[in-house]
């Protein structure tokens, strides 16, 4: 099979470059450190490091982003287990049993289980990504403008619908993104739009400063508002590795969590937290072991962590093959591809750049294995990381945000854009307006417009083209089915999450306000 040959080539590229290996190791550690800091997400870590990756070779830069993504999600489990404060929303379910294990003196086992499950979930999803993405891309090569228009509409509809607590607030955020995406030179007619005579705006508002603003600066402002100082270093007790019984009992849970996570990730608009809670509730329905769920059952940690890392691989499938980012992390990754001149979509899997794609896949597999190694070796170090005070974290985040926004194009305007969107993002986040739809609107709006107008040009203005081609019809049906499903299951899932958080642990889990 050429897929496996290409994947082997990807591994070859990594092991043939010590620089690349070192970069991935450093990225996984950096991702885990940021993920371990309560309130800081993997998405924010990626946004912070995005400018660095721009200054590196594409293979190294994109591998770094993959390492940070995987490490950041896994790192979120550390404060969830040690402090009952999930580092990322993805690890909220982990805290239910993880913290209970810590209280029973099994903190190290809980961390080991989290790292093991994260690694397995990530590797399974990476393998599925490596096999499925090229097949989907091959199919998508037959798609033309009408299909891509309907796909973009699918992304816009579904993402705004599921991105927050309020449907309307999701649409408000999405519309802000669409408006920002309109600014600048119209790609088809050359008409300047919404520049109001400012030459700086004629090239449009760049995605990267906006990403840095809404994910980095916003988070720093939220941290300033919440400002906490360092507390005591949590105790690390218990044996390092898991018992055979725990491993045996958790095998099925991890396998199921990996598949659930990957499947959830493929659906645009979902996310790591939904995958983790769904896997947790499935595991809870089929309990194993003597300890009940919510009281320190290692299966609870395994279910949540295997799924949330698996979501990452799943979410990369529509992003890489169709250019549809399913959630915030993949939107940042898409930004990373764009700044290296790579346009996500089926063409990514053809020509010279396809080898780079398989290097990225191979990196993702290695990054997930490294999670286990780093997590086990440096568990004690991370117990100190979780207590780094806010007044140290905030200046570092802000400095990297400002220099990052500037370094992409060496434009002072980009620094101002990052600040403006950081301030806007702060007001949005503190009032339950999700920020991800802003980014997704910026990406998907122009995609929808360009393909719509191309299709209309080709057909001489015949609207029926969007409803007569087989793939288009399939996508419209998918939109209808997904909207009904999401609308009905959204409330159910929210209720499930609330119930789990309320009853799952004797201490309620404190989920810090974070940006996604």
């Amino acid at each position, binding site marked *: 099979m050429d897929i496996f040959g290409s994947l082997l080539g990807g591994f070859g590229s990594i092991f043939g470059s010590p620089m690349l290996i070192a970069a991935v190791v450093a990225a996984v550690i950096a991702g885990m450190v940021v993920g371990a800091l309560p309130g800081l997400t993997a998405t924010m870590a990626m946004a912070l490091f995005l400018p660095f990756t721009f200054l590196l070779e594409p293979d190294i830069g994109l591998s770094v982003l993959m390492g940070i993504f995987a490490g950041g999600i896994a790192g979120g489990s550390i404060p969830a287990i040690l402090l009952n404060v999930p580092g990322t929303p993805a690890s909220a379910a982990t805290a239910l049993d993880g913290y209970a294990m810590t209280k029973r003196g099994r903190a190290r086992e809980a961390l080991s289980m989290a790292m093991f499950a994260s690694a397995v979930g990530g590797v399974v999803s990476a393998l599925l990504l490596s096999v499925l993405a090229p097949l989907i891309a091959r199919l998508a090569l037959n798609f033309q403008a009408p299909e891509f228009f309907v796909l973009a509409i699918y992304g816009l509809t579904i993402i705004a619908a599921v991105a927050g607590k309020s449907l309307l607030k999701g649409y408000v955020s999405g519309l802000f993104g669409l408006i920002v995406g309109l600014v600048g030179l119209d790609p*088809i007619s050359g008409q300047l739009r919404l520049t109001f005579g400012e030459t700086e705006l004629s090239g449009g508002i760049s995605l990267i400063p906006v990403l840095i603003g809404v994910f980095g600066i916003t988070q720093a402002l939220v941290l300033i508002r919440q400002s*906490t100082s360092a507390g005591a270093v949590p105790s690390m007790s218990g044996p390092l590795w898991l018992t055979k019984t725990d491993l045996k009992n958790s095998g099925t849970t991890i396998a199921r969590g990996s598949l659930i996570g990957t499947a959830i990730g493929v659906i645009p608009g979902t996310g790591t937290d939904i995958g983790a809670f769904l896997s947790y509730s499935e595991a809870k329905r089929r309990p194993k072991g003597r300890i009940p769920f919510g009281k320190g059952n290692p299966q609870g940690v395994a279910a949540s962590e295997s799924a949330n890392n698996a979501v990452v691989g799943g979410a990369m499938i529509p992003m890489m093959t169709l250019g549809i980012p399913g959630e915030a992390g993949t939107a940042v990754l898409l930004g990373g591809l764009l700044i290296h001149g790579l346009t996500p979509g089926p063409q990514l899997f053809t020509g010279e750049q396809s080898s780079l794609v398989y290097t990225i896949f191979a990196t993702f597999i290695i990054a997930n294995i490294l999670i286990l190694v780093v997590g086990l070796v440096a568990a004690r170090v991370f117990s100190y990381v979780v207590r780094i005070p806010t007044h140290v974290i905030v200046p*570092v985040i802000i*400095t990297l945000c400002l220099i990052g926004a500037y370094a992409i194009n060496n434009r002072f305007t980009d620094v101002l854009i990052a600040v403006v969107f950081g*301030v806007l993002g702060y007001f949005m986040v503190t009032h339950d307006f999700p920020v991800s739809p802003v980014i997704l609107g910026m990406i998907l709006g122009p995609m929808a417009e360009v393909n719509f107008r191309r299709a209309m040009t080709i057909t001489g203005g015949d609207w029926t083209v969007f409803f007569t081609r087989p793939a288009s019809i399939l996508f419209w049906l998918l939109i209808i089915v997904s909207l009904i499903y999401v609308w009905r299951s959204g409330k159910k899932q929210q209720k499930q999450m609330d119930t789990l958080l309320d009853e799952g642990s004797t201490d309620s889990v404190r989920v810090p306000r974070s940006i996604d």
Partner: protein
Amino acid sequence: MAPERVPDEDATPAAEEPTASPRRAVPFAMAALLLIAAVLILLEAGGYRAGSGGEPGPAALPYLVGGLSAVTAIALVIQTLRGVHLVEDDGAGGVLPIRVLVAMVVLVAAAFLFRELGFFVVFTVVAFAMGWLAGARRWWTNLIVAAVVSWLVMIVFGRLFSVPLPAGPIDVFLGG
């Protein structure tokens, strides 16, 4: 002297005792922003050139987005007036605590002064201010951290990655 802060545990919104006053100002402001944007878009799109050969032209999406924005803004106002999906005041200093407001002012000022004053001075001041606003207790350690972080970033980006940073006399002196 550090700015007034809330204590550790109470600082996390989830841990705080919510008061009964839902916040309406920001949803109203968002609706106003969206409505203003809608009006500007609809007014400007009228002057765009027309499409040709069945292609709807550059005004099509702006018209759609402008119209949707206006409708959504009105819906948001109605939702806010009805008190649906409002965020309760969590007691962490209201919508905009003074230290966040100061942080925003510092950031905007930095964005404008970056070019004029050079990298090192502006970034050191920004990092110092952010540390202080986030609760740093000792000003001199905060200043040292701010200066070291700024210098490291200047060397990494300016020297290693060859990013042309705006340089004042201090930047030149420090090797930037």
